[in-house]
């Protein structure tokens, strides 16, 4: 071990400084014990970043072990920059989802843009070329002008970054609900395609190999971003705006091309994004994975400005940078590739045999930790978990105890309101700002159940989707966790793709509160059950805690990013009706569960009741049925039945494609035991609406999988949706439904700041 002494001018380590760095007294004592002395300021900074919740997963790691992570086709499970699965033909798919919630709450444009940039780098550092982006977004009510500002800024940030790099943004979801008002969720997922032989891992190896910083220069932006992401949002958060990074998608595009060339060149052994906690975490994690020591000289790091301290260089989260372990003697080959793309590359350190993590400033050692303990010594916590009595009481509420409004006598009135609810309404306002067709692989783009991309050189396709209903998870975390996985699988299956594996982004509140920790534990348990039952292992993901502000916590939102494979791309199936005269078949139970529904939230402003049950055998039967039926070519459209229930799902089949709308005559009058609202708007799971020219065959296939299925109507004409009910009927012109669905969000967003009144803007400005 070397002599490490405080750097002249460094602040003295005091309990207050330790607290400011987010370390508990216990964690600080652990650090002192590990070092056998007091840390320097630089060392304190390093540990504050690496032991932050964001980097260390200290409240979630023990529980994440409950998730299944293996299957014969999983080439890389959790622990790397991204998960990788084989799709046959020597090809593999790398994918990962990550949150950028806290930055987006304070600076929506840059917060979202750098979220896209970070997840792109995670995928291309595996050796994969990114082929698709998805986004899972949660905002408060769009009636709030600040929420409109956040929504518009996030969408523009996502679009400007992805469009410039040239990766199509093809799918995702956007939900609007009050608990996300001050703490939006911005989760970005990237999917990449690669040859299996190009798979590279971020594992430092080979004593004497040089460590190189490549890409953009290091500046003073984003210092302590990781710690910022690991605390509650508060009135003070705005003052931490400098912790937010600034993205440069053009540099990212150059870095993408240069990195893929580097990997193909064989001149490097490992590559990792300098993401959260920048140089510190990338170097420490690569050393830990490779079980080697590293030494880094901060004076060799290319910087944007002079006078940066080791502390600043190590903790900077400047974007578009990579850390590379090159093969000794290949430094100039690396430099040549970076120069071709007008980027810098500098040797900043080397892999050493001595098991230490050492940082020098020239010849002076400014930080040194024993071995990999810097990463592995971080404590883990399993605090008390207890369900909130208030939420328990909400769940016990009987949804039918809520009286119908007089207007509900006409179910078309209710349906129109649901179609216009921003969570259900068309999201074209957002996804029209995303280039969804660049790279010419997008077979089914935004607006469908899942997006489908062709795989060139094969007959295959990849289907991708993100999903989670946070309200269900709030009311019953275990059931909600199961549904999140099942719904994502169902969506992917509706396009004809076999669900293969997931990545997940666990967005929760402050885990030191027992009711939040309970939600986290139960939701993971539910997800694990569904992943096992559906054969979709977890290949990685991200945990984002402390998503709360003085207004309270967000709904617990474990977002699932699902990847599926279609063997024959010509079978890729759309969600909207395609053909007049087709029979409409409901696969699954008629159901009618109203607990936790969009109906209760939108029509009655109520969150309560038990969320729909999730029987995983039923889910599997529905998925197997739809896959067999699509594989046999007897399905013309397939749509998952979820938010808003059967009526909303059928209406979407009729109107979602505004270029080719088709009406339908549906008969649900046989469900005499249930009220109209249960039949129309209940959100029973494991249901799929299909249209088919051969209903007998579809029913046979369903029977062979023991999935309930019945004919419920026909696709007919272009003007009206009619649903016969035990009492009366729902009759609505498509034009009215279409107006509600397609014009809702553009109508609200037309109330942009330019058009807002001074009274509306005042709170935005004051924020």
């Amino acid at each position, binding site marked *: 071990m070397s002599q490490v002494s405080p750097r002249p001018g460094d602040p003295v380590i005091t309990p207050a400084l330790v607290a400011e760095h987010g370390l508990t007294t216990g964690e600080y004592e652990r650090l002192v014990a590990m070092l056998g002395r007091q840390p320097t300021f630089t060392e304190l900074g390093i540990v504050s970043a690496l032991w932050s919740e964001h980097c260390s997963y200290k409240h979630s790691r023990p529980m994440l072990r409950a998730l299944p992570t293996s299957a014969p086709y999983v080439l890389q499970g959790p622990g790397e920059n991204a998960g990788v699965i084989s799709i046959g033909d020597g090809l593999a798919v790398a994918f990962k989802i990550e949150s950028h919630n806290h930055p987006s709450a304070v600076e929506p444009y840059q917060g979202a843009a750098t979220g896209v940039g970070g997840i792109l780098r995670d995928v291309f550092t595996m050796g994969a070329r990114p082929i698709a982006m998805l986004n899972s977004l949660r905002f408060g009510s769009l009636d709030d002008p600040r929420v409109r500002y956040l929504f518009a800024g996030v969408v523009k940030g996502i679009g*400007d970054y992805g469009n410039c790099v040239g990766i199509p943004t093809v799918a995702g979801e956007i939900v609007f609900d009050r608990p996300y008002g001050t703490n939006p969720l911005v989760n970005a997922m990237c999917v990449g395609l690669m040859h299996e032989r190009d798979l590279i891992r971020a594992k430092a190896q080979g004593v004497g190999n040089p460590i190189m910083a490549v890409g953009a220069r290091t500046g003073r932006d984003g210092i302590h971003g990781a710690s910022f992401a690991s605390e509650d949002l508060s009135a003070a958060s705005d003052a931490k705006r400098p912790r937010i990074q600034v993205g440069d*998608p053009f540099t990212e*595009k150059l870095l993408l091309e240069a990195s893929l060339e580097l990997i193909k060149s064989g001149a490097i052994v490992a590559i990792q994004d300098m993401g959260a906690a920048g140089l510190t975490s990338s170097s420490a994690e690569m050393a830990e994975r490779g079980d080697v020591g590293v030494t880094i000289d901060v004076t060799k790091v290319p910087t944007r400005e002079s006078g940066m301290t080791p502390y600043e260089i190590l903790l900077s989260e400047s974007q578009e940078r990579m850390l590379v372990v090159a093969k000794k003697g290949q430094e100039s080959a690396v430099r040549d590739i970076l120069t071709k793309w007008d980027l810098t590359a500098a040797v900043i350190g080397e892999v050493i045999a001595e098991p230490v993590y050492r940082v020098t400033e020239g010849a002076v050692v400014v930080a040194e930790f024993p071995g990999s303990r810097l990463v592995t010594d971080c404590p883990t916590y399993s605090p008390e978990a207890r369900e909130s009595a208030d939420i328990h009481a909400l769940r016990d509420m009987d949804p039918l105890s809520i009286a119908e409004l007089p207007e509900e006598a006409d179910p078309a009135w209710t349906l129109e309101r649901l179609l216009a609810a921003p969570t259900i309404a068309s999201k074209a306002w957002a996804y*029209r700002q995303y280039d969804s*067709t660049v790279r*010419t*692989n*997008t077979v089914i783009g935004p607006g469908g159940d899942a997006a489908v991309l062709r795989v060139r050189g094969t007959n295959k396709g990849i289907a991708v989707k993100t999903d989670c209903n946070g309200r269900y998870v709030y009311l019953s975390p275990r059931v909600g966790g199961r549904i999140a996985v099942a719904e994502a699988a169902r969506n992917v299956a509706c396009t004809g793709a076999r669900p293969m594996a997931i990545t997940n982004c666990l967005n929760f509140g402050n885990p030191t509160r027992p009711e939040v920790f309970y939600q986290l534990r139960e939701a993971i348990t539910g997800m694990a059950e569904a992943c096992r039952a559906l054969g979709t292992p977890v290949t990685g993901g991200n945990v984002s805690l402390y998503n709360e502000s003085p207004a309270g916590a967000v709904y617990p939102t474990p977002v699932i990013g699902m990847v599926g494979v279609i063997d024959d*791309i010509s079978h890729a199936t759309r969600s909207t009706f395609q053909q007049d005269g087709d029979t409409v078949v409901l696969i699954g139970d008629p159901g009618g569960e109203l607990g936790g529904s969009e109906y209760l939230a939108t029509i009655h402003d109520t969150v309560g009741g038990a969320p729909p049950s999730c029987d995983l055998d039923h889910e599997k039967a529905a998925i197997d049925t739809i896959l067999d039926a699509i594989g046999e070519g007897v399905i013309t459209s397939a749509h998952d039945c979820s938010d808003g229930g059967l009526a909303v799902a059928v209406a979407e089949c009729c109107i979602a494609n505004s270029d080719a709308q088709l009406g339908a005559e549906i008969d649900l009058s046989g469900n005499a035991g249930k009220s109209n609202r249960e039949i129309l708007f209940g959100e029973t799971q494991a249901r799929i609406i299909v249209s088919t020219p051969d209903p007998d065959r579809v029913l046979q296939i369903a029977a062979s999988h023991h999935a309930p299925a019945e004919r419920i109507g026909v696709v007919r004409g272009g003007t009206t949706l009619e649903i016969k009910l035990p009492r009366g009927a729902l009759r609505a012109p498509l034009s009215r439904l279409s107006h509600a669905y397609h014009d809702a969000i553009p109508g609200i967003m037309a109330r942009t700041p330019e058009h807002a009144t001074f009274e509306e803007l005042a709170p935005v400005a004051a924020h």
Partner: protein
Amino acid sequence: MKFGIVTFPGSNCDYDAYHAVTEVLGEEAVYLWHKDHDLQGSDVIILPGGFSYGDYLRVGAIARFSPIMQEVTAHAKSGAPVVGFCNGFQIMCEAGLLPGALLRNAHLQFVSAQVRLRVENADAMFTNLYEGGELLRIPIAHGDGRFVATTDVLDELEGEGRVIFKYADANGNISADANPNGSERNIAGIINEGGNVLGMMPHPERACSPLLGSTDGIRLFESILSRVAA
């Protein structure tokens, strides 16, 4: 016939153009690096879409100064075919190969959509396999696609049949509702005086496969083949 596809550092549709030429047309294609001065014997030059140099300044303003543009300009002046899609169109206007300019979309948002184009001139090098007035389904994806020029220039372009595509609605009407970006007179694509240089904001290279929803772009490439081969 050999197609040369220029790769500026921020080009991201070069790959799409390459595949349209090689896989759909079955012709030869090469990538031309922006720092080079060599067209490698290409007959047709494509300036693809993307964000040439980041385009943080005016779009295409830096790209026009890149080394390869000297040869591209000479190629155009010689009467040989040069086509620019999206960012390529923007670069052409900056380089003076085509008149007018492309400004930020009128609604200030990036717009990605499948639009309809009406063929205004079916005799051009790039449109001779289309019918006059035919409606095409072609995707757009741009933030700066609002074509503007002086009234004189617009009148001249229209008078000489150099406006070859306009944004139209489902019935073929050139309406304000069908205009996705606020372009003057719904102009989507124009050619130069010599008829050998085409610039258009829509992406015909993305409309070359039934799987992707449209094959209307194929005949644009085939038109060049038939005219140049003839």
